[in-house]
Every structure is written in structure tokens, then in C-alpha cells.
């Protein structure tokens, strides 16, 4: 049922004659999705470290209560 459209990996990459267009679109897609994923994860961990730092600056006296 699965029928590969390309004989070789080289043919898949070349996708003659449209390879550069197709692959640049998918490369861009990976870049944007990857970049967003990195950004949201970074923002989350950044928020955590900022709160922790704020917590330490207040001297941690709240941990006793």
C-alpha cells in the first residue's frame, strides 16, 4: 500500500526541479515551530528563576511561616 515516490534519498532531496522551494518551506516551518517552542519554554523557566530570585532577596523568612 505504501508506495514511495522517490527511488533514492538523493531524488527525494532533489525533488526535481522544485527541491529548493519545497525544502526551504519545510525548513522555515521547522525553524518557526522550533523557535516558538524554545521561546515559550524559555519564558516559563525564566519566570521561575525570576520568582526564585525575588524569593531569595526577601531573605526566605517566609519559609518559616
Amino acid at each position, binding site marked *: 500500500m*505504501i*508506495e*514511495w*515516490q*522517490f527511488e533514492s534519498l538523493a531524488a*527525494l532531496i532533489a*525533488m*526535481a*526541479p*522544485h*527541491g529548493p*522551494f*519545497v525544502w*526551504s*518551506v*519545510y525548513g*522555515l*516551518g521547522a525553524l*518557526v*515551530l522550533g*523557535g*516558538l*517552542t524554545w*521561546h*515559550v*519554554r524559555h*519564558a*516559563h523557566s*525564566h*519566570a*521561575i528563576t*525570576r*520568582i*526564585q530570585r*525575588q*524569593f531569595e532577596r526577601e531573605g526566605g523568612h*517566609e*519559609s518559616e511561616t
Partner: protein
Amino acid sequence: MAWRWFHQWGSPRWFYERASRWQAWAGWIAVILLAVGTVWGLAIAPVDYQQGHSYRIIYLHVPVSFLAQALYLAMAIAAAVLLVWRMKLADVAMQSLAIVGFAFCVLALASGAIWGKPTWGTYWVWDARLTSMLILAFLYLGIIGLRSAMLDPNTAGKACAILALVGAINLPIIKYSVEWWNTLHQPASLTLTEKPAMPASMWVPLLINICGYYAAAAYLVFASMRGLVLHRERRAQWVRELVGAHD
């Protein structure tokens, strides 16, 4: 029952904890669906007899364009929720949806332009869909810009909500007027739409990828919202306990 539901969504803590699970689910579903759909679309789906291999861009372009519009709609709904019920979580949702939506919009424009080169012989034509997507990108940009310029975050959220709603009312008018303008100025030869019906081996991977990008958008929005909720609730006791448990 309804009241309890409403109350839960009003609680940032409840959302933060629940969304962690939703985020993980959405992320894994996205990875699996996108891997299957993209490999299928790129290597297994039959080649288009008119456009050759360049048509394979459809497996990214169409889902992303769908999402760019769907996310604006979602943002407008969140805006209405914020203005009517003053739910803080809706503000966070708007902020996340604007950024993810804008990124998808830019991706849709870029992939459309790159697809245009082999199909139309040029990177940009003033095609109705490209034009209304460009205007959608400007609308997203306006909302992001307005939020970043406002001094008070509470006012910023509501101002963005008003702008998002006005934009949502205007969007269908913009779309129809751009389509009408396009028929006025251009011969209708340059469309991607008028093609014979796709065989199943072509549209099934497209459907898989549409679902995959929906899941990816859900993952990104939930992840972004959780970070924002944490920052906004930084003075709350539950956040301090949670963060304390991290080290």
C-alpha cells in the same frame, strides 16, 4: 455545576496544574501527527500532474493558513470573554494566541510566497488570499504592538480586547472586499483552487497535518499561557510554594 466550571477557569492555579497535562498531550499528538503527515506528504503522496513536486508545499501551507485564521477567531472569543466576564485567564490566552497566531501567519505568507515562485513565476502576486493574509498579519502585529506600548497591563489587556473585537468584525468585510478587488484587477488564471478533486492519497496526509498543526498550536498556546500565568501570579502563595519545590 455551571458555576463551579466558571470558578475553575477563573482560578489560575487550577489552570496552571491542569494545562500541564493538556500541554504534554497536545505536544505528543503534534509530534506524531506531524511526523506521519509530513513524511506521507513529502515522500508517499503521488506527484501532482500539473505542478509537479512543488505542490508538496500544500502540506505545510494550508494547515498553517487555516491556523492563522482560526487563532485570530480564538483570540476574538477570548477578547469577548475578557470584556464580558473580566476573566484574567482570557487576557493571558489573548496574549499567547496573538504571538502564536502571528508566527503562523508569517509562516503562511512565507510559504505562500515560496510556492508562488514555481507556480506563478514570481514570489509575490497580489492574489486575494495572499493579500488578506498580509492584512491579517498587520492586525496581529497591531495587537502585539498595542500591548507592548501600554503602561498598565490591565488596561493593555482590555484595550487589546477591544481592538481584537473590532478587527474580528472587520475581518470578513476585509476578506470580501479584497476578493472583489482581486476579481476587478486580475485575470482569474492565477488560482490554486480550481483543480480536480484530490485523490485520497493526497488529502489524507493533508488532513493529518491539519490536525497535527492544530495540536502544535494548542501545545504552544498552553505552554506560553502557563509561563505568563506564573509571572502574573508571582506574588501568590501557591506560586511561591510551587517554585520553592523546584529547587
